[in-house]
C-alpha cells in the first residue's frame, strides 16, 4: 500500500523543513521517503501542487462524548470531525459519563477508538475519582492502561492539597496535569466575562481573576511539587503575565489557547446566541491582543480546540441555562491560518509547530513529525481556498459553533492517518 504525495510545499517544524517543495512517499503506513522528485509506479498519487503538506495536526484538548452522551458525539463522529479538521491525533478529556477515572474506561475508549475511530485517540485520565476533586484516581493504573495526561477538565481542582499531591504523585509516571483554572467562588455562576458588556446585558460575569487566582496557585504548587503542569484554555492577559514570569523562573509549565480566544471577544455575546457561551468565556479586546502577543513571543506553547459538542436542545435555551462550550475541530486550522498566519502574528511554520510537534511532546507521543520511518500521519492544506463555514456540513454530531457563515481562508483538503486517507475534501 503506497501513497505518493507529489509537489506539495512541505513544512515539518520538528525537522526544520520550512516550506520546501518535495514529494512524500508513504509505504505500509509509514513515511518512506521525502525528496525533490520521487517516482513510484505502484503508488496512489495525491497531487499536492500549490498545497501545503504538514505532519498530521494534534489536538490535546477534545471532548468526545462517549461513553455517556452519544447523542452529542461519539468516538466515531468525533474522530471524523477531527479528520475533517486535519487532526490525525486527539487527546480526549475524561469528563465522560462514566468518567475516565479507572482503567476499565480507558480500555473501553481505546477499544472503541480502535474499532470505530479514524484518527489516533489518546485518552486523558481524571486526576480525581469522579472528577469530584477529593480522592486521587489510581494514577499508576491509568498510566499502565494508556492515558497520556491527567485532567479534571470541566472542573477545577478546588483543594490545593489535592492538586499538590496530584502534582507530586504523577511525577513518577511523567504524566502532565492539565489544569482548568477557575476559582468557582469567584466565577460565582457567571455566564460571560465580567465587564461593561456583562453589565449592559445584565448577565452575571466571570471575572478574569477567577482564572488568574488559580493560575497563580497552580504555578506555585508546580514549583513546590516539581511536577508537570499544562494550563488549559488560557484566556486573560493577567494569566499570560503569570505564565511568562513562571517560565522565566524555569518552572515546568506549558499552556494552550483556543481559536475562539484569539478570534472573538465578549461583544459577541450581545446577540445572546448561546454559541458564544463557553468557559473560560470570551474576554475583552485587551485579552485577545495579549493572547496574540503571547503566541508571537512563545509564551503560549500550543493551540488546542477544547472541542465541546452539545446537543441543539441543550444549547437552544436561555443564555443563563445553556451549557458552556462550542465545537472546534473543523474550524481550528482555518481560524489559525486566517487570523494568525495571514495577519503576521505567527509564521506558518510557527503555527504548525504549535499544532504538531509541541503538543506531541507535551503528551509524550511519537507523533507530529514527517520523519522517515515514523507512522504516516499527514495533513494536506490548500492555503488559497476561500470558503464559508456551514455547520450543517460538519462531521461532528453537534453544530454548536459561532462561526456559521464565516468566511475563512485555508482549508484542509486531505488527512492521512497511518498511511490511509481518512478525509478528502
Amino acid at each position, binding site marked *: 500500500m503506497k501513497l505518493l504525495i507529489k509537489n506539495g510545499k512541505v513544512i515539518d517544524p520538528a525537522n526544520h523543513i520550512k516550506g520546501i517543495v518535495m514529494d512524500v512517499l508513504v509505504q505500509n503506513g509509514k513515511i518512506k521517503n521525502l525528496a525533490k522528485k520521487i517516482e513510484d509506479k505502484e503508488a496512489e498519487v495525491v497531487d499536492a501542487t500549490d498545497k501545503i503538506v504538514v505532519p498530521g495536526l494534534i489536538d490535546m484538548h477534545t471532548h468526545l462524548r462517549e461513553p455517556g452522551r452519544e447523542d452529542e458525539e461519539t468516538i466515531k463522529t468525533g474522530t471524523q470531525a477531527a479528520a475533517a479538521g486535519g487532526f490525525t491525533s486527539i487527546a480526549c478529556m475524561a469528563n465522560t459519563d462514566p468518567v475516565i477515572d479507572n482503567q476499565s474506561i480507558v480500555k473501553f475508549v481505546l477499544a472503541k477508538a480502535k474499532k470505530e475511530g479514524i484518527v489516533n485517540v489518546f485518552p486523558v485520565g481524571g486526576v480525581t475519582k469522579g472528577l469530584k476533586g477529593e480522592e486521587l484516581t*489510581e494514577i499508576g*493504573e491509568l498510566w499502565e492502561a494508556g492515558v497520556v495526561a491527567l485532567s479534571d477538565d470541566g472542573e477545577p481542582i478546588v483543594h490545593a492539597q489535592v492538586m499538590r*499531591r496530584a502534582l507530586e*504523585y504523577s511525577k*513518577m509516571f511523567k504524566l502532565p496535569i492539565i489544569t482548568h483554572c477557575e476559582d468557582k467562588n469567584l466565577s460565582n455562576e457567571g455566564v460571560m466575562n465580567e465587564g461593561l458588556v456583562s453589565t449592559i446585558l445584565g448577565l452575571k460575569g466571570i471575572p478574569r481573576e477567577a482564572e488568574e487566582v488559580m493560575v497563580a496557585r497552580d504555578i506555585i504548587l508546580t514549583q513546590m511539587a516539581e511536577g508537570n503542569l499544562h494550563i488549559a484554555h488560557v484566556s486573560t492577559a493577567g494569566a499570560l503575565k503569570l505564565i511568562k514570569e513562571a517560565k522565566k523562573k524555569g518552572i515546568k509549565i506549558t499552556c494552550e489557547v483556543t481559536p475562539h480566544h484569539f478570534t472573538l471577544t465578549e461583544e459577541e455575546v450581545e446577540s445572546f446566541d448561546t454559541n458564544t457561551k463557553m468557559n473560560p468565556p470570551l474576554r475583552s479586546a485587551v485579552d485577545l491582543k495579549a493572547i496574540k502577543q503571547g503566541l508571537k513571543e512563545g509564551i503560549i506553547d500550543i493551540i488546542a480546540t477544547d472541542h465541546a459538542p452539545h446537543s441543539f436542545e441543550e444549547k437552544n435555551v436561555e443564555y443563563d441555562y445553556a451549557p458552556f462550550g462550542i465545537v472546534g475541530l473543523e474550524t481550528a486550522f482555518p481560524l489559525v491560518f486566517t487570523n494568525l498566519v495571514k495577519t503576521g502574528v505567527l509564521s506558518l511554520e510557527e503555527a504548525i509547530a504549535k499544532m504538531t510537534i509541541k503538543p506531541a511532546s507535551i503528551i509524550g507521543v511519537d507523533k507530529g513529525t514527517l520523519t522517515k520511518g515514523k507512522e504516516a500521519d499527514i495533513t494536506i492544506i490548500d492555503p488559497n481556498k476561500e470558503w464559508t463555514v456551514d455547520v450543517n456540513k460538519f462531521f461532528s454530531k453537534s453544530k454548536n459553533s459561532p462561526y456559521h457563515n464565516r468566511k475563512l481562508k485555508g482549508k484542509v483538503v486531505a488527512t492521512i492517518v497511518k498511511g490511509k486517507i481518512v478525509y478528502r475534501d
Partner: protein
Amino acid sequence: MLLKSKHLLGIEELTFEEINLILDTANSFKEVLTRPIKKVPALRGKTIVNLFFEPSTRTRTSFELAAKRLSADVVNISPSTSSVVKGESLSDTVKNMEAMNIDIIIVRHSTPGAPHLIARTVQSSVINAGDGAHEHPTQALLDLFTIREKKGKIKNLNVAIIGDIAHSRVARSNIWGLTKMGAKVTLVAPPTLIPKGVEKLEVKISYSIEEVIKNADVIMLLRIQRERQKKNLFPSVREYAHFFGLDRERLEKAPENVIIMHPGPLNRGVEISDEVADSVCSVILEQVSNGLAVRMAVLYLLAGAGRKL
C-alpha cells in the same frame, strides 16, 4: 566506656563509637538469652516504667523482658488505665513517678518531643520507644545489629528503605544510624511519601523499586498505613502494592544474599507478600530476637555499667 547522655532519645545525637558500644554490648547479652536461666543481676533493685501511649506488641514486650532478664522491677502504664483519662498531664504523670524513685522511664508517644519533655521534667533516665514520626532509636539499633550480624559489616552496604518514609520514625532513626555507620542509603517511595528536604541527609531517592533492587544488599520495608489513602498520599492500597510491594517476582531481581527486614507489624500482601515474608532472605523474626539483646544493652549502659543514678 559509657554513653555520653543518661537518656536515649534518638540516634541523631549518638556518635559512631557510642553506636558500636551498644552493638558490642548487645552481642554479649545475646549469649545470655541462650542460657537455660536467662537472667543476670546487672539491674537488680532498679525500677523501670514502661509508659506506652500508643499500642505496641514487640517494643513493649521486648523492653519488659529485657528489664526482667536484667533482674530489674518493671511497671507497665498505659494511658487508658491511668489518670491520663482524667486529664492528668504528661508532666504531672512523670513527676508522680519520680516521687516513687523510678530509675528509667521508657516512653512511646504519638507526638514528637514527648520524651524530651519528660527528660526536662524529671531526674530519671528516659528512653524513647517511639515519639510520633520523630525517632525510634532502639529499633534502628536492633536493625543495625541485625545487618552487622548477617553481613559482617555495615559500611558501604547498599540499603534500600521502601515505604512511607514521610511518616516513619523507623526510617528517620535508620537514616541517622545507617549513614553514621557508612552505609549507602536509598529511599524508595512515591513522591508523596518522601518528606521534604530529606535528600540533604546524604540519602538517595528513587521512585522505582526496580531501579534499586538489583544492587540492594539490605531491603528494609516499612508498613503502609491505609488511613494515608484518605489523605491522597497514594490512590489505593492496591496501587501501592502493585508498584512498590515486594513480591517474589521483584525479589528474584535482587542479589542472591539480600536480606529482607521489616520493623513489624506486617501488612501481608501490601508492602510485603507472604512468600517474601516467609522466605529464607527474611530476617524479620531475627530482628525481634536481636531487639531483646539490644534493649538489654541499652538498659545496662544507662542504668547498670557503674552509672550512678
